[in-house]
């Protein structure tokens, strides 16, 4: 870890000014990801801009009946928020599937969106990694890539984006509000994160001089038929091998509208609208779900150690959609098995 300066603005505009002034400055919210990266020398900011005092901590209903979540709302508060529990249980469930009580107490909504990959090599500064050091090469492509992506990979990076919360946000079609020197703008969730392409150093489309201020959820919460399934090596407190967020609007035995997003398989939450469209109007049965799974995974490509993820994801999609259709969401409490 290296020495750094430290600032604590009270206003969003001030925070934006400060980040714009110094390209090596970083915002620090909960710090659970940033401090970890600093301990491994992956991040060496010259200046920390502590944003914990910014007024971005409320959860409010929007005029259209949706929800606006401030970027600094702690993950715990969000998961237990009555409006989230009742109207967006898929989001609550995904948050509870991730990290631990202590971490969720510290971690912020914006920080969760921004959290960086858990690729082993990204964390190990002794190894080449294009994301950490553009142009140095990717150790994972020929290395141990069991945890890595099967969709949307590039020649320069095959990392996965590790958030659980964001997979649900993707399925729920959230929007991200950001503020920059030129004012505020919104981005569809699907446009926020990006594929590695040949610039894997960029995780998302937030400009270096912008700050996330809020996440907005549309009114439709899929509270009745949803499920978040996370498959991992240990029952709790491990990042996903594959995770699936499924949300359905049912019409009797048939699917009226479907949302499907995958985690642990790509550099961003993976959503394929064609697969969702293919489910609309279909009977909620295994055949329909399998078809949707095949569409989602049609371009999937495995590497030496992670090819298993393709079939695992297929099976997980079918299982999660089944849970959603039956109204029996996966419990994130491991005592109850469904």
């Amino acid at each position, binding site marked *: *870890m*290296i*020495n*750094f300066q*430290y600032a604590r603005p009270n206003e969003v505009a001030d925070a934006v000014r400060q980040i714009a002034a110094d390209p090596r400055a970083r915002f*620090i919210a909960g*710090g*659970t990801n940033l*401090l*970890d990266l*600093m*301990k491994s020398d992956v991040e060496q900011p010259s200046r*920390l801009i*502590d944003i*914990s005092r910014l007024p971005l901590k409320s959860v409010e209903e929007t005029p259209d009946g949706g929800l606006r979540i401030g970027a600094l709302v702690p993950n715990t508060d969000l998961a237990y928020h009555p409006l989230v529990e009742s109207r967006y249980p898929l989001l609550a469930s995904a948050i*509870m599937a991730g*990290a*631990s*009580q*202590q*971490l969720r*107490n*510290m971690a912020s909504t914006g920080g969760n969106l921004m959290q960086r990959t*858990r690729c*082993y*090599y990204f*964390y*190990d500064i*002794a190894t080449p990694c294009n994301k950490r050091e553009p142009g140095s090469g990717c*150790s994972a492509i020929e*290395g*141990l890539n*069991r945890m890595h992506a099967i969709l949307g990979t590039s020649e320069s990076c095959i990392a996965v984006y590790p958030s659980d919360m964001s997979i649900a946000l993707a399925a729920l079609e959230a929007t991200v509000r950001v503020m920059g020197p030129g004012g505020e703008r919104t981005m569809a969730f699907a446009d926020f994160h990006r594929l590695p392409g040949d610039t894997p150093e960029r995780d998302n489309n937030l400009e270096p001089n912008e700050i996330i201020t809020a996440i907005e959820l549309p009114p439709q919460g899929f509270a009745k038929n949803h499920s978040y399934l996370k*498959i991992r*090596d*240990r*029952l*709790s*407190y*491990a*990042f996903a*091998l594959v995770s699936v967020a499924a949300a359905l609007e049912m019409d009797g035995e048939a699917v009226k509208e479907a949302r499907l997003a995958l985690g642990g398989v790509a550099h961003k939450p993976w959503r394929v609208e064609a697969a969702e469209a293919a489910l609309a109007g279909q009977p909620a049965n295994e055949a329909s779900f399998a078809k949707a799974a095949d569409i989602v995974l049609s371009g999937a490509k495995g590497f030496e150690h992670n090819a*298993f*993820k393709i*079939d*695992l994801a297929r*099976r*997980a999609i*079918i*299982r999660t959609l089944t849970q959603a259709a039956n109204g029996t969401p996966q419990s*994130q*409490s*491991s*005592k109850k*098995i*469904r």
Partner: protein
Amino acid sequence: MNHTPADQPQPAPTADAPRNGYTINGKLYFAEPQPGQCLRTFLRERGVFGVKKGCDQGDCGACTVWLDGTPVHSCLMPAFRAAGREVTTVEGLAPPDGSLHPVQQAFLGAQAFQCSFCTAGMMMTCAALTDAQKEDMPQALKGNLCRCTGYRAIADAMHGRAEIAEDIAGEACGASVPSPLAHAIVTGEARYTMDVAMEGMLHLKVLRSPHAHARIRAIGRDRAMAVPGVAAIFTWEDVPRRLYSTATHEDHLVDPDDSYMLDNVVRFAGQRVAAVVAETEAAAEAACRLLEVEYEILPAVFDPVAAMAPGAPRIHDERGEERGNIYADIHGEIGSVAEGFASADAVHEMTYSTSRVQHVHLETHGSIAWQGEDGRVHIRTSTQAPFIAKQKLCHLFGLRPSDVHVFTERVGGGFGGKQEMISEDLCLLAALKTGRPVQWEFTREEQFIGATTRHQMTTRVKLGARRDGTLTAIELHVVSNTGAYGGHASETLGASLGGPMTAYRCPNKKAAGYAVYTNMVPGGGFRGYGSSQTAFAIECAIDELARLLGIDPFAMRRKNMILPGDWIESAWNDPSDVDFGSYGLDQCLDFVEGALAKGGGLPKPEGEEWAEGTGVALAMLECGPPTEHRSGAQMRLLPDGSYHLAVGSTEMGNGSITSHRQIAASLLSARADRIAIVNADTDLAPYDTGTFASTGTVVAGQAVRMAAEAMRDSILGFARRHTGADCRLDDNAVICGNERVGLAELYAIGTRAGHHFEAKRKSYLSLRSVAFNVQGIRLAVHRATGEIRILHSVHGADIGRLINPMQCRGQIEGSIAMGIGWALTEQMVYDAEGRMVNPALRNYRIPSYADVPPTEVFFADTYDRIGPLGAKSQGECAINPVAPAIANALADATGVRFPHLPLLPDRIFAKLAPHA
């Protein structure tokens, strides 16, 4: 580091020196954290040592504190964040009136700890839970790992179940009396190795090799030396060029002297290259990074079979040509397996393998060394074997034994990992060279890449049996990957060919084992010590053979298991010093079969995708190692009529200080808390080989028994002579005829008369008894995704008389949890260059609360005629049947045999048909 010991609560500074105010446990401190400092180290620098480090990365929860009442991982919290807020640590949990917080009381009542390194963090999480959260402990405790307990005792604490027994004079043995340190543990006062501040302390850090095999051509130190605060740098040129083994055993000849403190050849990625000592850890770390090492890369080999082949790269070329990389090989045959297989109706042959895993004791390795005013050197360290560590230090540095003092404070878990001297030597070197105290604490990453591991073994098993199930031949072929150094290699290899094969009676047995050097991190001692690996293979194979013959797995075992009176033999003809001090295998098997049949545990999850199966496995342990093991105990009556007991053996969470006190107390008809115990200190306690090989009770406990008996005889003898009546002890007095004489009074009289109320005894291990463990598992596996859920776990243990039932149960539950981790989730992953890619607890997954089901534990009703007060060994063997029972249940559920650990979803799901 700019803090001084005077960094105590202070009055607010004046305006010209504005500093941040931090409220820690109600006291206000003014201090400026160093740039980038996390709250954890900031608190510890203020002497708040209840805040522990298990990982420093947010993975383990040992550092949990409250910030304004909310639990957070202090290692991931920037210290400056706490300015103006209230920090509460375990030291501040209890109300000021001196009573305990309900959670502390609950942890004390349920003795919800073993090494207790996790306890402070665990309690801080638990004490902040809402009632609703308490309903879902697996979720609530996601962020707190415990390696020792298997979480059951923690669950008990949270459900308000208290189990501690009253400490009644003369009845300590067999009662669940609490640890003598229980109060200190729950209040955070218990001190571990690193929990001390010393004036002038230097910090040591080590540069480790990125290469698996290389010769060091040169090490440039100028840039490193220029880092402000660096005091000294040590490379292979600065250390005594003396060979030794880091493994600790009574007989040093069982391990090869193949290591140098620092060497000019590195043989695994992670090996020490150079050490830096500096004023701060950060400076030492920075300097390590600036060392310029020129390596000549040498060819490396990682697979032991490849390493045995002619022409393979040589790991230790000073060894004779003809032996190549084979460090040890063991062969034996009794009867004739060729004839045995010829007469078999069914033969099963398969290759099984087990993975390299790490102990993950929550407290990492570490020591502090300094030169005392007495002119001697003192080493405070986290070890299982302080006396052997002392011998090795004397050997390395040419010191006289009387000039070296090695001791432990509380040890935060060992499991065999601390049967190794891997931190003391460099600290002592640096302390001798700089004249200052030097401390070195391993990081969690170093724990994975630079400490020892369980030997990876590949076992080919061939079993033959007649139609009725009677075994006709057992043949084992074991290849053990000992890594770059051979400590524990031959002993674990011997153990691998011992117990698991001895457990079955069969006239024809053959064994061949090879321990092979490779460029991997070294193997070492690890709970189960070699026999866990082959127990996995043999117990799986017994099930497969039973399946071939259509025989029930329980019946198959009953037909062939060793029975009292049998000649106890593995595959060699030499007589052994093992005998049946007692026998309870039959009871254990009956219990497990009955408990599985009765049901219990969780029901199978709904849905046809879930398949269910049950499995059983057994294990046999010879109590104590076949090599020498010695221990000593010393007792003294004190002027106030209480006792002093000194035992050499280390307490590392195994509970030995509790049980040793109980053994002494019951022989002295006293309450346990009349006895003050010191242990694991080369100045204060008699010699002990070390706490390993399940000897804490059968060897050290035996010494305590003998010392206590001698103490009793000394007191009663004097009292009889003094009063002329027949006497007996009663707590703090002797009763002679009708007269009751207080021990304080007796002491005064006796001492005046020149009597010495003292006793010292040594014990030595031979004859050795046998102990047994049987594990039963019912599990469900999801055919589509390969997830495994353990639904019901039952365990029968034949460990003789229980000195402390609660502790015994804890040891078994901890072993089971460790077995579950080994079977299902733990795996050290290496890349093609032999570097570990997952050296962090988030990627190397030990079981969390949610992963460990409660186990129904049964204890066979046996009383051992060899062990002290009827007790036998118990710390290790319970792990051995766990992995095979799980694998057998998985085979039962799916019809597919998975012979390689761990049973991760991606390894198994592909072989499962998604539909029944």
